[in-house]
């Protein structure tokens, strides 16, 4: 048979894949939206406790991480421009910086969580269970929300890793960079969610 080569036939629709990515990002926002709703309800119920518990978080580490994400969002956006201008080297450097900053974020998170766990401030610990209800829930939310966000950082890093690889092999070029653009969109989402998490957890004390 001759017309059985659908698999090899390349169907490309950049607008379509961008649309798909936007819809996916929307679902991710709704996923976190559910958590923000729970946060809002519980915070309204235990205003005072949340206030007290939030003092335990380290604003300094949080700020560094915010900065890291903001800069990385910028560098990945710049890498798209670089690819469009055919500057493969520059794009690779910018993407590597993005990847590295994401890594820094995780390292910081590791120390931050480690310290909390060291002080027995984790969900279900004997210490936490002696706290007031609101404080228990605050720490629960803190670990759950930042944990889910960290998972998204890891997914984003894998995506950026793939993109770096493809730029290197000229699979992503100035005439075919939709994957890079989608990775960028995803990374902005990860950044955006953190921009909400940071004030909710660290700053409102």
């Amino acid at each position, binding site marked *: 048979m001759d017309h059985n080569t659908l698999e090899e036939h390349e169907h490309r629709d950049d607008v379509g894949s961008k649309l798909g990515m936007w819809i996916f990002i*929307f679902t991710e926002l709704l996923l976190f939206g559910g958590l923000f709703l729970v946060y809002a309800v519980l915070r309204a119920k235990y205003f005072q406790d949340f206030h007290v518990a939030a003092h335990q978080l380290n604003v300094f580490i949080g700020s560094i991480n915010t900065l890291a994400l903001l800069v990385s969002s910028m560098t990945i956006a710049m890498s798209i421009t670089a690819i469009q201008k055919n500057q493969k080297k520059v794009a690779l450097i910018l993407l590597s910086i993005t990847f590295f900053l994401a890594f820094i974020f995780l390292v910081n998170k590791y120390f931050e969580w480690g310290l909390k766990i060291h002080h027995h401030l984790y969900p279900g610990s004997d210490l936490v269970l002696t706290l007031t209800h609101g404080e228990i829930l605050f720490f629960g939310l803190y670990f759950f929300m930042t944990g889910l966000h960290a998972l998204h950082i890891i997914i984003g890093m894998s995506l950026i890793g793939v993109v770096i690889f493809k730029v290197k092999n000229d699979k992503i070029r100035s005439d075919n960079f939709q994957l890079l653009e989608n990775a960028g969109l995803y990374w902005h989402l990860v950044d955006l969610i953190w921009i909400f998490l940071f004030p909710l957890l660290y700053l409102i004390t």
Partner: protein
Amino acid sequence: MGSKPVALPTGSYLDQQGKYKGILGWLTSTDHKRIAILYLSCIAIFFLVGATLGGIMKLELLKAGQQYFGPQTYNGFFTVHGIIMIFMVVIPGLSAVFGNFFLPIMIGAKDVAFPRLNLFSWYIYLAGSAIAIYSQFGGHGAPDTGWTFYAPYSINTNTNVIPAVLAAFVLGFSSILTGLNFIVTIHRMRAKGMTWFKMPLFPWSIYATAWIQVLATPIIGITLLMVIAERTLRIGFFDPSLGGDPILYQHLFWIYSHPAVYIMILPAMGVITEIIPTFCQRNVFGYKAIAFSSMAIAGVGYLVWGHHMFTSGMSNFARIAFSFLTFVVAIPSAIKVFNWITTMYKGSILVRTPFLYTLSFIFLFMIGGLTGLTLGSLAINVHVHDTYYVVAHFHYIVFGGMGFAFFAAIHYWFPKMFGRMYKERLGNIAWGIVFGGFNLLYFPMFVLGLQGMPRRYFDYLPEYSTGQFISSIGAFVLITGLILMVYNLVRSARKGELAPMNPWNGQTLEWTIASPPPLENFDREIVITESPYNYK
């Protein structure tokens, strides 16, 4: 038959020769039609498993008193029955099977927008189903929460809740990706000249459904993740003993699960809207009204979740608002029913098997819908909440609606999908048994519910014996009919007479190509100039 040639034309999607042959060729194919068949096989099997569990429950309920197993086993059965039927059968059902197969063809496209993502969604579906089935066997006994996983019980019971919840999460992910794929397909891949209002109505219903899949599923996703976290980490979001709020769980759960009912029923309405014009040889009455009412149902459907919680503690204002909005959703649904009936008026009606299922769909859906309105009324709801009345209502809507539409669709499109005809007489007989058994099974449940028989009970007082007995007989009649139907279809898919291109004189695009369709659907470029329904 016998004397007829028994070979299909070569070059159809069924004998596609990709990189791999045989079973691997199916498991690696990104062709939307093959993926549809993959879904169809899984869903048919899961449906039979789910129906068997239902039958076993009815066996226990045949007589008052304990017959074959105790309450805990019964709890496991209705939970897993619910999970299989809801998350593995009726939510993906129509859109994953017939949406996948016919959406691209009906809009004149060669495939969906993201064929590999499409195959990936099926694998996710399979993984989720495997976890769900595992939940029945592994760990400390089958989950016993019901498919709704209400907190705080789902957090405290030591049965196998985590795999069940995880399964629902994974299945939801598959649903999101399918919906996303369809939305982009409809936006980007319609044939030249196919404006939005020249698109057939089944794709319209799939479009409305896809938005619900994308916008509602993430909420249940995060809710289920929270249940898992609660169980593993003792966080306490929903556990009052740690300060959490169980009512919050119910809100989050129903914000998804009410719209999920429309994920089931909207494509069903789309199927019915395709079948009626074909078998009446009449143009659809009120094309735009049907298209817009799909979108209206999808939209208002988000706002009525509270009608599941009238008795759980809500402000009176909220209860009245949710009750009112529930009545509002009935309007677009009724618009559809009126349009179907009007389309039939003065048509030259051909009563074939798909049309029988279609008529029974309208009948059953109306009973389900009207009893839904009574459930939406506050005073009645307080009386029949969590009784068999509810069980009867949702089986009429979901099984009588989505299920019968599925049966209608499989008979309607069977010749196109497999290139062969089924035995019509046998199909009609099976329909009669299924329809009779269905009503015998579920109608008594309305009465039982009004008398006060609570749902999810493995035993009952002697007062309910007659109703339960009739209902159990109905279950066995129904299952017999189902087996007959499946037998007819499975046998015909291999041995039936060869089907012509357009056995019912349909007008939409799928009837203009060979049965079964070739690999890329169309060998020419499609240009649309007229409305999809164009009977003289």
